[in-house]
């Protein structure tokens, strides 16, 4: 089980801020494929992966990051702090 978090318009499109996901996906990319296959709102959120950033256990990383031993994955648009 992995905690999957969504922020900003990714959260709005999917309609929830976080959920626990039972997954055997070996990588973030594989997890995204599983989520997209679920429902249209996931497909809408993940339609353009170039617009999405990912953090694994609160560290920015890429979609090829492995999920072994990971507790938390977050998806969000490019950050606009400052």
């Amino acid at each position: 089980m992995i905690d999957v978090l969504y922020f900003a318009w990714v959260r709005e499109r999917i309609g929830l801020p976080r959920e626990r996901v039972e997954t055997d996906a070996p990588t973030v990319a594989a997890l995204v494929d599983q989520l997209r296959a679920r429902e249209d709102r996931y497909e809408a959120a993940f339609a353009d992966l170039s617009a999405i950033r990912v953090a694994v256990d609160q560290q920015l990383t890429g979609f090829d990051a492995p999920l072994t031993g990971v507790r938390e994955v977050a998806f969000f648009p490019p950050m606009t702090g400052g």
Partner: protein
Amino acid sequence: MEIRILPDAFDPGAELARFSTDRSGTGAIVTFTGLVRDDGGALHALEIEHYPGMTEAAVTAMVAEAEGRWTLTDALVVHRHGTLRPGEPIMMVATAARHRAAAFAAAEFLMDYLKSRAPFWKKETTRDGTSWVAARDEDEAALDRWT
């Protein structure tokens, strides 16, 4: 090093007053304050969302990186989340060093990284509705000068 991620208003003047007091070995203090730009009255409110936990970790790592690159006597980052009104301070960076070059460089470095690498997202409510603020290409490009 002091980092505060907070939902409430803060006072940049009070922060600088405190930050510039009892500053042994410091000759130079630089601050950056980001305000909610009113843009001629079009903007009604700015909502800032963040990623609790990761935000603190990411900002702490940025400040540690700055302290590794320049000799600082102190550094401060304050960043709000929640709902802000036009004119309100969004965030503030302060750096202290012996000389001005290090204080300026570290403040600019922290701003560039906070803009594009700290997990905050801004949503504007204007007279035309609400929309997420898009990341600016020039903010991403600004990071290149530090690599």
